[in-house]
């Protein structure tokens, strides 16, 4: 981990130092049109009443992320790229380094780009940029739609995609993306850690048969106003683990995920609202005991947010969100949250963020983190600073 951070720091300083010189001379790999980018961030989490992601009531500095990518355009219309990513989020991921994305893309035209490899999935407005601090003012995306502990499950697929931009009448256009492939989740990811804590116990494995999805984003003739729908189908999401040594609990569900989004960018102010609905159907059981039952997952989340860019270097953010464990019975486990955040950007490549949230109810807390039971009203604060290049 330290070596990656050191490499990032050296690359960043080297890039900055070379910038002026690069103006006047030809770079070594110009024909490959190579670019190197990355970011590194450090943060701090503190909560009151409930632990969240870690023993955060005592404060936790186990919060950092780093990425390093290489992009090349060796031929007209061809783009290649790969990114390594590491994250430590409390007890999740613990600095493991992963191949975040790696692709070859062929730009056939404005209307069509074909890509293959490990590709980010365009779910909702922000899933494909969920790690990009530059893309938002708050520290975290709204957790009701962008599940923090399931990043690995949603962030990418190994497969192929087609996307493009189609001009429509009256200054409108349509961005679309269609994708499909496999989904691989290593045994030591944040997702498996969470599933283990949520009842699957030790040695959690996650596997899927295949996944497909699509996104359509309509930019309207009203400047800045766009609507988006995203759909994801996951076939046979199989989760297995040992809650008790030698006894395997296994589930097998087919999932649909739908997200409807609206974004209105009024230059200094951006308004966004999204609604997400999960529908899973399948079975769960313990084979050794001959126990199997049908099970379903009907999660639901929604939020509205406003971001105000007061100055070139200062942003404010306010959001309200709701999350329900079962959309068919909202009185069951749920949570309401109010989030306020500010982002200060002293330089183009450096940000400082402060986010506070108040939560009513306990959906996002888990028993392992709060063994004596979770409080129904609780607070949290996140600090984060990021440097990118």
């Amino acid at each position, binding site marked *: 981990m330290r070596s990656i951070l050191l490499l990032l720091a050296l690359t960043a300083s080297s890039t900055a130092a070379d910038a002026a010189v690069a103006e006047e001379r030809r770079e070594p790999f110009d024909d490959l049109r190579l670019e190197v980018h990355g970011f590194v961030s450090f943060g701090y989490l503190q909560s009151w009443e409930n632990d969240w992601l870690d023993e955060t009531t005592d404060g936790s500095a186990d919060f950092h992320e780093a990425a390093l990518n290489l992009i090349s355009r060796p031929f007209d*219309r061809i783009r290649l790229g790969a990114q390594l990513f590491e994250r430590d989020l409390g007890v999740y991921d613990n600095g493991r380094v992963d191949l975040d994305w790696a692709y070859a893309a062929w730009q056939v035209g404005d209307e069509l780009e074909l890509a293959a490899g490990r590709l980010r999935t365009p779910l909702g407005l922000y899933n494909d940029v969920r790690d990009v601090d530059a893309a938002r003012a708050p520290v975290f995306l709204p957790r009701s739609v962008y599940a923090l502990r399931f990043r690995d499950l949603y962030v990418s697929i190994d497969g192929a995609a087609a996307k493009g931009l189609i001009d429509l009448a009256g200054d409108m*256009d349509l961005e679309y993306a269609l994708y499909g492939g496999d989904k691989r989740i290593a045994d030591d990811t944040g997702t498996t850690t969470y599933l283990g804590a949520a009842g699957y116990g030790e040695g959690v494995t996650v596997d899927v048969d295949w996944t497909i999805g699509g996104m359509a984003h309509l930019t309207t003739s009203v400047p800045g106003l766009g609507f988006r729908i995203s759909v994801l189908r996951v076939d046979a999401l199989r989760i297995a683990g040992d809650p008790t040594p030698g006894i395997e609990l296994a589930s097998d569900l087919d999932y649909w995920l739908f997200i409807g989004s609206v974004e209105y960018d009024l230059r200094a102010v951006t308004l966004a609202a999204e609604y997400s609905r999960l529908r899973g159907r399948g079975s769960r059981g313990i084979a050794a005991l001959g126990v199997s039952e049908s099970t379903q997952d009907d999660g639901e989340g929604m939020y509205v947010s406003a971001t105000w860019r007061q100055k070139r270097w200062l942003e404010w953010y306010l959001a309200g969100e709701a999350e329900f464990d079962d959309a068919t019975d909202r009185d069951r486990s749920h949570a309401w949250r109010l989030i306020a955040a500010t982002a200060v950007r002293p330089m*183009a490549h450096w940000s400082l963020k402060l986010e506070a949230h108040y939560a009513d109810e306990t959906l996002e807390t888990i028993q392992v983190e709060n063994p004596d039971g979770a409080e129904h009203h609780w607070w949290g604060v996140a600090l984060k600073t990021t440097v990118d290049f």
Partner: protein
Amino acid sequence: MRAPLILLVIAVTVASAAAEVAVVNPDVAEKALSAERLRDILLGRVSTWTDGKPIVLVLSDDPQSDGAVRAASGRDDVRHLLRGWKRLVYSGAGAMPTVVDSVAAALERVRRTPGSLALVAEPPQAEGVRVIAPTR
């Protein structure tokens, strides 16, 4: 009544005349560029010219460019526009524009780089580049 109308027409005409322009390297095949296509180029939604060659976008991270960026892209300023590009770069959906620190440096980069485009607030007095006023 007519006088205010005439003044309004003159004001709109002057505003149009002072609008931002695209400066491109002479090898760029496009002779015209719509305001919508220029916006899509600035936002990274379009990355190739019509002949298939890659668009090399040159941005000047200079507060003096904020007005032109605001008018042409709908983004609040150059930094806001660049944050949109970081979304593309860190999600594997694009490559970063060339960023320089002044309009003069942007013009020089466009002069030297095939396929390049820069946005400036008014037509420059510079050789070795071509100016395209976006059509609306």
